[in-house]
């Protein structure tokens, strides 16, 4: 927001780009979980664009982004977050879009030293170089600490009005926001990408290990955001909804996955991802019974439906907490 306001202040037309990778923590996550239904389901990027009076282009990069996650040239952060490669990818895509649409340069709100991987003094030139944006990439908030870029040298932007923000502290940014009359803004950095989340990353690593290959489809990464994931055996895992919103979300996958739910007691909807035999289905049914209202009963009726149309009804004894090894929880 600040970088945009600074550049708009020089009379320059700015438009926004927002990339959807599939890992974004956004309104859709709130839409899944019932407990979050009261939260405002605004898309932050759209909201920001509206505050700034700029057009926003939301671009689906799900397919192209896979290579960033699977083969990050610069490695991962503390989880499966390929921050430096991610930033380079996004700047590259933004630069390509800008050139295709007749824009002269791109800006980001990066600040030197703000983030441990992608916003260090030594990595910022790497992003400019590897993205192909080179000196058409301007960071208005730290510009005075960086070599002059093309828009500054050409006089399109007055370098003297740009800033020299540096480091993890955000006091100068907050002061500038006040100056611009911006009082409501997204909480600074972090928490916007599931790949920075340790639990989510563990689920993704488990998925790759179980499949013997570092690949994923969009549905895979969506399902990692939902439910309890338990892997009783290497060949399959059970995804069990935690509440009604997740029940509804998982039900949307019933044509693609073996799915099960209790009929004798209220309880969760669950999917099986992987290959199962008869005994595995029984274990899965007992797990589903464990997380439903019948957990204290001697017997729970569970329906199991396979994608080919084969269905069966099982009478099972719910697993007890002691019966579920901690290692099953992903």
């Amino acid at each position, binding site marked *: 927001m600040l970088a945009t306001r600074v550049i708009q202040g020089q009379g320059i037309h700015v438009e926004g780009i927002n990339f959807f990778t599939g890992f974004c923590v956004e309104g859709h996550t709130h839409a899944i979980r019932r407990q979050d*239904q009261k939260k405002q389901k605004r898309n932050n990027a759209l909201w920001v664009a509206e505050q700034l009076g700029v057009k926003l282009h*939301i671009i689906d990069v799900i397919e192209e982004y896979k290579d960033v996650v699977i083969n990050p040239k610069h490695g991962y952060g503390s989880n499966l977050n390929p921050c430096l490669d991610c930033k380079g990818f996004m700047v590259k895509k933004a630069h390509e879009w800008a050139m295709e649409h007749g824009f002269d340069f791109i800006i980001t709100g990066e600040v030197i030293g703000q983030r441990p991987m992608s916003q260090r003094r030594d990595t910022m030139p790497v992003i400019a170089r590897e993205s192909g944006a080179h000196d058409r990439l301007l960071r208005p908030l730290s510009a005075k600490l960086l070599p002059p870029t093309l828009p500054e040298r050409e006089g399109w932007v007055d370098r003297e009005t740009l800033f020299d923000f540096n480091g993890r502290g955000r006091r100068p940014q907050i002061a500038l926001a006040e100056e611009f009359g911006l009082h409501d803004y997204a909480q600074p950095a972090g928490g916007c990408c599931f790949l920075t989340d340790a639990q989510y990353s563990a689920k993704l690593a488990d998925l790759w290990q179980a499949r013997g290959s570092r690949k994923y489809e969009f549905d895979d990464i969506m399902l990692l955001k939902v439910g309890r994931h338990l892997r009783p055996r290497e060949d399959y895992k059970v995804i069990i909804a935690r509440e009604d919103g997740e029940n509804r979300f998982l039900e949307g996958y019933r044509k693609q996955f073996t799915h099960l739910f209790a009929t004798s007691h209220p309880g969760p909807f669950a999917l099986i991802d992987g290959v199962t035999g008869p005994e595995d289905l029984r274990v899965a049914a007992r797990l589903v019974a464990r997380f439903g209202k019948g957990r204290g009963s001697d017997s729970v009726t569970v329906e199991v439906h396979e994608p080919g149309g084969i269905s069966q009804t099982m009478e099972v004894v719910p697993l007890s907490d002691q019966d579920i090894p901690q290692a099953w929880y992903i």
Partner: protein
Amino acid sequence: MSRQTLDVRGQLCPIPVIRCQGRIGTLAPGETLEVLCTDPGTLHDIPAWCRIHGHKVIETSEDDGEIRIVVEVCG
């Protein structure tokens, strides 16, 4: 002027907005797009996207979890 329909039921935001953005890009001013969705987030996001791009939401309705948003493409 023609009306087209975009069915994004079952898709979660921002996918409905992205699909809506793509389809509107192919329509001429005055044409309308009826968007069918289920994610409650679309009630905020599609009108917000339309406002910032200068298009007009002319109808919004919700019935038993199904949302219908009609957008008129503006120049």
